[in-house]
């Protein structure tokens, strides 16, 4: 069914997306080091030497490289065949080194940060800002109040230099190198990423923000993030991604490890808006101890293919975990996302709320697992996955897996696939909203349960993106 007169607007297509994609083209950045394409042991040794790493980290990298070589490329999930692993630059180092104050940051870099909103974040008194320019952190600031509380917020490279004993204690304990091929690759070539350490009983208060950005064609980005919340600590970490345009596929394979100690609370919010030729294959996992609480809030809007299933291991009695996610699959996109909740201890609770939208031939897949081990009695888990399909060309699939080895548990699962109904569109149009705005409104309403958990500035940005994408759907 179509309305009497269509509003003709140019369709937003991937190739022309620049016009509406405000971050624009790849910025011109000088690299002090750009290795050969492809990966071998020699490059790994070079990376480690350049970073002046301790021997154990080099050995860890080399061991992970062997694991990487031994594992096949996953054949489930999305199509990874367009990734040419041999054509990727595995290490890039911008010509500028880390700057302490905003004044020292070169103008060209500043301009890019301007576009991705770092100064804005500064003005808004956010706790700390970390921007990642390819493989090194070029700018970072940490508010004095944080240091006074003993909170560490650094790049992983810095952390390895300054606090090697903490890094060594936790690195690879939540996501071991053998977990999957991409996690092994990350362990072998990781560079950058954030390190957050919150001491016992400290509530960080303001969210910690990091901006990530890939800025070189075919630059693989393998950042490594480690967050440790000691007993009773509380922290919210925000990772917002955005990338400029590229012509060939670029790989992003991050690993995020979160350790939530007794009664600690961690929220990890991600806004992923990679350009639509990026392969985003991420391993994220949290280890949650007694009465600890972990919450992942995950928005996936960009990339060609995203495969990401943030997990929580509920290891201590009374631990809680939550996953709220939004996936947007537009033209040429496949969002293969979900969550894993592993209940090891009694009276643990988990909740997964997943909302996906597919449009213009996009494909959204929910792939999730809930596992309740023997002995995890009194545990509860609730899974809600709602899919909204906006046209006939698009697709949505749900692959839930439940492995329950304990009788005294409660497991709920709801899955609803819906479309924007003609009644809803007519209703909103009869109030004066044009068709695409009416549709965007229904879509935003569908996402609202997750959006309300996202900080305001991100929610506004996501609403805007949804509106932008909807405009292309009319006609």
């Amino acid at each position, binding site marked *: *069914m*179509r*309305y*009497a*007169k269509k*509003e003709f607007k140019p369709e937003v297509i991937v190739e022309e997306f620049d016009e509406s994609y405000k971050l624009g083209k790849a910025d011109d950045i000088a690299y002090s080091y750009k290795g050969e394409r492809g990966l071998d042991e020699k490059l790994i040794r070079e990376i480690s030497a350049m970073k002046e790493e301790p021997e154990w980290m080099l050995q860890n990298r080399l061991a992970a490289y062997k694991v990487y070589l031994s594992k096949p490329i996953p054949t489930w999930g999305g199509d990874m065949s367009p990734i040419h692993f041999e054509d990727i630059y595995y290490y890039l180092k911008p010509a500028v080194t880390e700057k302490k104050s905003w004044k020292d940051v070169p103008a060209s870099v500043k301009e890019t940060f301007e576009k991705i909103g770092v100064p804005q974040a500064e003005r808004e008194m956010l706790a700390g800002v970390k921007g990642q320019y390819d493989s090194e952190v070029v700018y970072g600031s940490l508010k004095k109040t944080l240091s006074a509380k003993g909170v560490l917020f650094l790049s992983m490279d810095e952390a390895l230099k300054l606090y090697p004993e903490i890094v060594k204690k936790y690195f690879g304990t939540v996501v071991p190198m053998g977990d999957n091929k991409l996690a092994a690759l990350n362990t072998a070539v990781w560079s950058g990423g954030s390190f957050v350490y919150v001491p016992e009983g400290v509530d960080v208060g303001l969210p910690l923000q990091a901006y990530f950005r890939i800025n070189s064609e075919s630059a693989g980005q393998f950042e490594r993030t480690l967050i440790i919340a000691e007993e009773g600590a509380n922290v919210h970490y925000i990772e917002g991604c955005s990338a400029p345009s590229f012509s060939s596929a670029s790989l992003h394979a991050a690993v995020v490890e979160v350790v939530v100690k007794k009664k600690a609370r961690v929220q990890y919010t991600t806004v992923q808006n990679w350009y639509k030729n990026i392969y985003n294959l991420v391993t994220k996992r949290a280890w949650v101890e007694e009465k600890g609480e972990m919450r992942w809030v995950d928005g996936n809007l960009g990339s060609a293919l995203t495969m990401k299933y943030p997990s929580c291991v509920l290891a201590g009695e009374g631990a809680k975990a939550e996953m709220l996610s939004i996936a947007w699959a537009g033209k040429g996109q496949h969002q293969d996302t979900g969550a894993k909740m592993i209940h090891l201890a009694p009276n643990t609770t988990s909740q997964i709320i997943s909302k996906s939208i597919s449009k213009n031939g996009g494909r959204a897949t929910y792939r999730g697992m809930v596992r309740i081990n023997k002995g995890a009695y009194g545990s509860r888990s609730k899974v809600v996955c709602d899919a909204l399909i906006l046209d006939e060309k698009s697709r949505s699939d749900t692959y839930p897996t439940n492995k329950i080895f304990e009788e005294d548990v409660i497991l709920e699962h709801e899955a609803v696939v819906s479309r924007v*109904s*003609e*009644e*809803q569109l*007519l*209703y*909103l*149009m*009869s*109030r*004066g*909203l*044009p*068709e695409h*705005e*009416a549709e965007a*409104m*229904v879509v*935003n*309403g*569908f*996402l*609202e*349960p997750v959006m309300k958990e996202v900080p305001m500035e991100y929610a506004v940005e996501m609403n805007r993106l949804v509106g932008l994408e909807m405009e292309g759907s009319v006609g």
Partner: protein
Amino acid sequence: MLKVKNLKVRVEEKEILKGVDLSIKQGEVVALMGPNGSGKSSLASAIIGNPKYEVIEGKIAFEGKDLSNLTPDERANKGIYLAFQYPAAIPGVTVREMLLSALRTRNKEVIVSALDLKKTVEIEAEKLHLSTELLSRGLNEGFSGGEKKKMEILQMRVLKPKLLIMDEIDSGLDIDALATIAQNVAEMVKEQKMSVLVITHYQRILNYLTPDVVAVMKDGVIVEQGGKEIVDRLEKSGYR
């Protein structure tokens, strides 16, 4: 204000309206009565531009302009408003958010403040004895029948249309709710010179909202038109 001339409308190959003529002047209340299935609601659908209702002959003019090429939103922005018999639910969207978008779309020059709108909506809700708790819920989501009807009138009060069409607003309403709604509508007629087309099967609402003209529809055509005396007669002898 509204002129419907020899209107023939088809839904999925079936002719529903077979040559309807009807006029509504500014500030006039017109009651459209008739048995179930006579085509009353179809006329409302055709006026607002529901694309399922295909106009095959005749025309609908609003303020002297033909509406046939206009989409529902364009018609709404000209000042036509339908209070739906079965309003759709919009989960996750509050009535304020919806009205804010609608007002901003209609008039891009005037800056509509979200805060002012919030106050306006609260005042209107109070006048309609509508619980303010409903204002922060998804529009029509889990509302009772009466709440939905009142919410339709609330939106109308904020959007201030030139023509209000009420489709079976009285169904499922108790007397108090009906009186409240009628009073809120009558106020708009008096203060804004709003025109009203009341589509109803029963005379109940007409006890609270006195019509200037009563038209009777049967089998897709207007069979009778006159004053309020028609209502009394129908009340006694029913539709024949």
